[in-house]
């Protein structure tokens, strides 16, 4: 993800994410606001089906192959 986004965009996402998921920010932030902070980080991290399969441990690496999605039998 870091390579696919600009540095500023990446840092902004990380800061909001960190605020929403660490103390004391997490105590202060309502869940709905926390979801809004977490969403742009997670969606961009897992924007391609192949990324999800990597996150779940179903495949061993993420590649730039546009066809990386479902695992063919």
């Amino acid at each position, binding site marked *: 993800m870091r390579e696919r986004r600009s540095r500023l965009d990446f840092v902004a996402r990380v800061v909001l994410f960190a605020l929403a998921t660490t103390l004391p920010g997490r105590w202060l932030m309502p869940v709905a606001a*926390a979801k809004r902070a977490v969403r742009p980080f997670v969606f961009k991290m897992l924007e391609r089906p192949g990324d999800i399969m990597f996150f779940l441990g179903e495949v061993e690496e993420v590649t730039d192959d546009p066809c990386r999605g479902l695992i063919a039998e």
Partner: protein
Amino acid sequence: MTQSQEVDVAIVGSGFAGLLAARELVAEGRDVTVIERGGLLRHAEQLRSQRHEIDTPGALHNHESHPETSYHWDYTYGVGGSSLHWTGVVPRLLPSDFKMQSAFGVGRDWPISYEDLAPLYSEAEQLLSVAAGPNSLFGDERLGAQPAHPLSPTDRLIAPFLGPFFTLPQARSTVSVGGRSKCCGASVCRFCPVDARYSLLHLLDDTDLAGQSGFELRERTVVSRLRVEGDRVVAIETVAEGGERYEIRPNVVVLAANGLENPGILLRSGLDGPDVGRWLYDHGHRLVQLELDRPANHGRGSALITGISYAYADGDWRSDRGAQLVLPYNPGFDVPVEIISQVASGRTGREMMSDIRRRFEHTLVLDTVGDDLPRPDRAVELSPRKDGFGLPLNRIRYPADEGYAERGRTFMYRDLERRLRPLGARIVKIKEVSLGAHQLGTCYMGEDEGVVDPDQRHRSVRNLYVTGGSSFPTYSPAHPTLTICALAIRLGRHLARASSS
């Protein structure tokens, strides 16, 4: 001064209905002018821009929701219409779908039968390079043009409990066509990375329709209204993206825009009537998640969806409740949404990961799509608000499903748990997905009633035809594209015959 041009057949809209009718007419030597609001965006540019429409005033969507109802509507203004963004699911309607009134005492009968359309379904499947396997509900006829996508591991797990269960007919190719790759299972069909999901740009490229004499494509041109004198359209008033007004004087007009814009044009032309714009329907999808006591085998298969269950598609009970098709969703549940929810609730680390992974593995996701009875309170009207061309917006009144449709769903939810009990299934989530992609019924076809006759000819304007999903008298739970294609081929041939005789 407004410029004008005389043409033989003018077709409004370059989606499935418009281009397939045009193809038939051009093949028979007719001159066809296709008018399209949007512009041409090639597949590579769609991928680069992650858009299906170009920046032109005509491509701005010209509808709004009625203040009392809210519903998302999804269509594309561009050369190729909604074929640019669809996901390629192309079941035929069942024979009984054409006779809801005579078979079940509800809705209406179509003025044509399954048998009338069957040969045209076959031709449409060839044109769209449909991958399909046998389906005994349609007899012994071979369906499709290519081998089917095989059933996925998820399909094979549940097929024994949800019969009749077949491979899904789909316009995601299993063999290369026109030099394009076959489907690689990327499961991002709206922007297929390898152009394996059929679009009408393939028709233009593979058949050289655009290069044939007799075919003219007038893109970035908005139809303001039809001017009618007596029982004929004498002119189509158009406005180009720069505001230039142009008048097309046709022998024959075919409205093949979509189920919102077809009635919009009629209403803007003063061609109203009790049925124009009414009886609107969109297939409301529900994603049903069931937790199993064993892995659901998600994340595997050759395409997004590969199987289809007809367990709730047909029976005498259709007199009382809506039918449903059930399509197992191979990618599984929405992992990012689950992560967001858990992280925002304070869960992180290995515990969260292992929980999400276990639930991903054990949660079966079914895409369900159902029908409803025609309702007059679902309608396209003209809004007092205007678009950038000074034309009234199409205002959509679309109250939520109730009664017939909901009874069908309620029964299905209960029965899914019963049938899948051997897998330990229990429903954990039902997500409403209002795609708004199937705009049906707003200029419906009838023997003696409706907006158009069985040839899709307007009842009072004799050189005007209206085709596409708007012609459907009832809806079936089946995705409508293949039927739209078959109706368009039928109309094209009807017009060609009418000319030669």
